[in-house]
């Protein structure tokens, strides 16, 4: 979908991208990295908004050179900050955006209503944008990027500032995009959980370089060597039974959970029989999975 070869981008003395090479497959891609790591620079180059100092970038099979404006026909962009006009209605604004992308009035109108329907916007689409809630504004911002039917949608922090319900809805919509309209998604975010829920692949950029590019499902399938359990009453009995078996065992106990090292599947058996003989409730038992947080912190620090 996006291929970058030895891309260098300098702003004066500052090097934003330093010999950056990546091959991003189709699908839903999460792009992570600290502030100033080169994330947004890379995205702006891919959108054809700025030029790289050197190197080669291919987006959707088209090589970007000086005349990179045409590529934006195939790309939708949802910026991070609030950037929609207040004095227009949602419908008016989307039709205008459709026309600016090159749709004729009829198609733009039809498409606008289709997308807003898909995003579950009701009659409020005929109201002025200034009356919209944060979640609705975010939807309009998303819709303007979709109006011309792009092959690739770039989303910059789409869930920032949304409350849990609106955030879940936004993630659902993004998930649906790929399935319903075959749109590829590039998602830049600081909320690692979003990447876990939505993305197929994740790339992490730091210091202007690509750190990792991995399949998300494979990544989070990885398990650590710790079993986390939660037990009810008689937890003291439970622990002492566990310790009887092997008192060198490094058991970590807090008010919230107990953590036991995983040696082999026998560990589970021991836990179950300890709970059975202590007659305590075994609320939860599982090997802790690697999370995006672990991976991110490992890569970035």
């Amino acid at each position, binding site marked *: 979908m996006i291929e970058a070869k030895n891309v260098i981008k300098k702003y004066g003395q500052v090097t934003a991208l330093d010999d950056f090479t990546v091959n991003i497959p189709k699908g839903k891609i999460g792009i992570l990295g600290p502030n100033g790591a080169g994330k947004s620079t890379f995205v702006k180059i891919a959108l054809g908004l700025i030029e790289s100092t050197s190197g080669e970038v291919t987006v959707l099979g088209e090589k970007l050179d000086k005349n990179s404006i045409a590529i934006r026909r195939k790309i939708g962009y949802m910026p991070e900050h609030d950037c929609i006009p207040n004095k227009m209605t949602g419908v008016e604004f989307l039709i205008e955006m459709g026309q600016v992308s*090159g749709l004729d009035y009829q198609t733009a109108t039809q498409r606008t209503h289709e997308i807003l329907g898909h995003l579950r916007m009701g009659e409020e689409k005929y109201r002025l944008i200034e009356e919209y809630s944060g979640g609705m504004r975010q939807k309009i911002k998303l819709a303007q990027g979709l109006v011309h039917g792009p092959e690739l949608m770039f989303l910059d922090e789409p869930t920032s500032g949304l409350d849990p319900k609106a955030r879940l809805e936004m993630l659902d919509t993004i998930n649906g995009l790929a399935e319903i*309209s*075959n749109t590829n998604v590039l998602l830049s975010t600081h909320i690692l959980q979003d990447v876990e829920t939505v993305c197929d692949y994740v790339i992490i950029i730091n210091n202007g370089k690509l750190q990792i590019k991995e399949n998300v499902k494979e990544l989070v399938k990885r398990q650590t060597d710790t079993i986390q359990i939660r037990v009810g009453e008689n937890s003291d009995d439970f622990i002492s039974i566990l310790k009887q078996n092997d008192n060198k065992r490094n058991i970590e106990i807090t008010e919230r959970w107990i953590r036991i090292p995983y040696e082999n599947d026998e560990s589970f058996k021991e836990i179950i029989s300890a709970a059975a003989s202590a007659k305590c409730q075994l609320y939860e038992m599982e090997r802790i999975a690697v999370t995006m947080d672990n991976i991110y912190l490992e890569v970035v620090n």
Partner: protein
Amino acid sequence: MKSDAKIAEKFKDFTPTLDSRANIVLGMGLRGFEKLLSLKNKGTLFLIGIIYLWTFAFYLLMGEDSYPCTEVSEEITTCTHLNFYGDLQYGGTRIFLVMLAAIASSGLIANDLNDKSIHLYLSRPISRIDYLIARIIPIFLLMITVTVLPNLAIFISQFSKSGLDLNFLSDNKWTLSNLILQAIFYSISYSIIGITFSAAINRESLAAVAFFGTVYGISLIVEIFYEMMNGMDIEQADYILLLSIIHFLDIISYNIFNVDYFVTIFGSPVIIEYSFALIVGLYALLFFSFITLVNYIISQMEVTK
């Protein structure tokens, strides 16, 4: 009975044909023009009305027969079309034109900058310059309707006063093309100034006030300085008039009609001459730097996001 089951896949299969860049820009411009003329913009519509009424009253009803140019004295010649763009007390509509340009242009870029929707426009398949052109078109078309059209009306009324004499047309063919050229010149100049103010001061109402205040304020200050320097017999005094946009545009406008430029200071007209190359060069430089400034302001927005 045979029935085919179908599922609409409109949303999925949306592969529209997109217009060319030129058409997108033109479309944006025309929609912008329509918006300027919408009933919400009472000030704009009011000023357009005033300019037409003014033209009707002072140029069509009370207009003299001596068309196009009159000799005020042996040296000084004045033309109807030059008067049209001149000061109010001599029958000119300048103050209305500047006001209209200031009000109508002020929101064009300012609003996009203010609500930051400019980022969304610039992520479309158009370049920064395309965007600028699309934003200049509305104000340019608006200015054309209050410059070219009234002047054509005056021309036609003179033609009819001449008894629809075909010789009038052939005698005045240069007048006709010059008045169109002059109208386009004023329109494009005021449009670019308006766009510059709109981009530099990203508050709609403030940009309008700044436009009007700057253009008239500088003109006033420059005239006072000119008078002082003239009193002190400083030879370069003439050049100071080039600093005022109003005076500068008039100088070029007079040149279009190949008439000597004069300023009226305390009732006595004084002819001033400049080298043609100087004023054309200066004009090109000035408006090139305006466009560059606007382009720079917008590019800054993009970098800092």
